[in-house]
């Protein structure tokens, strides 16, 4: 799964938690969960749980703490997928 595909999956996952239609529509690596998507920390937990389920990966506390924007989230997903695949 490449970066674009991961971002497109993330968009579907985040949709129920964000009212920011414009930010969601133009989602890219620079999109910030709190600043741009106006997601609170409790919803961020649900997004991470949905990510675990969708990508069949496990996110640890340290990774979770870094998942503040799309860029770092994609990087973490890519890393975990690689570990799973190898």
């Amino acid at each position, binding site marked *: 799964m490449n970066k674009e595909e991961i971002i497109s999956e993330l968009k579907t996952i985040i949709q129920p938690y964000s009212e920011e239609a414009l930010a969601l529509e133009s989602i890219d690596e620079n999109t910030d969960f709190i600043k741009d998507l106006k997601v609170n920390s409790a919803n961020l937990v649900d997004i991470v*749980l949905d990510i675990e389920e969708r990508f069949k990966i496990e996110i640890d506390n340290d990774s979770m703490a870094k998942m503040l924007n799309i860029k770092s989230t994609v990087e973490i997903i890519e890393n975990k997928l690689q570990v799973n695949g190898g």
Partner: protein
Amino acid sequence: MSPQEILKNLPYGQAFLFVDELLQVNEFGAKGTYTFDENLAFYSAHFKDEPITPAVILTETMAQIGLVCLGLYLTKEEPINKTKTLAMSSSSIDFLRPVYPGEKVWVTSEKIYFRFNKLSCRVKMESAAGEMICKGTISGMLIAKPHE
């Protein structure tokens, strides 16, 4: 942590404490009771000449017993009780019937998950006769206590 210690560690003052007994608490959930004293301040105004427990107070009662008591139990190994508290982050409750002054209620919660400092529970409130009063889902986040 025993139910007694949990009750002692609750962050509420008497005027906003909606837990009398914590009957049971373990890794999976909590059960407790509260009796709505007919002298509680809000009965004189909710409603005028017709005292009924406000739904927001029923929600708070479910959260204090079902979520906060369970949260204290689940974090018993961590020294968080002194510096952190659980703040309600979302609730979705269906109300089936009113609660009148003087009634005793039983609240039971069942953990859905506790991860990344977020506790999410299915919670129900029942009457002495075992009738369902309200039920739903309540979640809270562990946050630093204000002023500390």
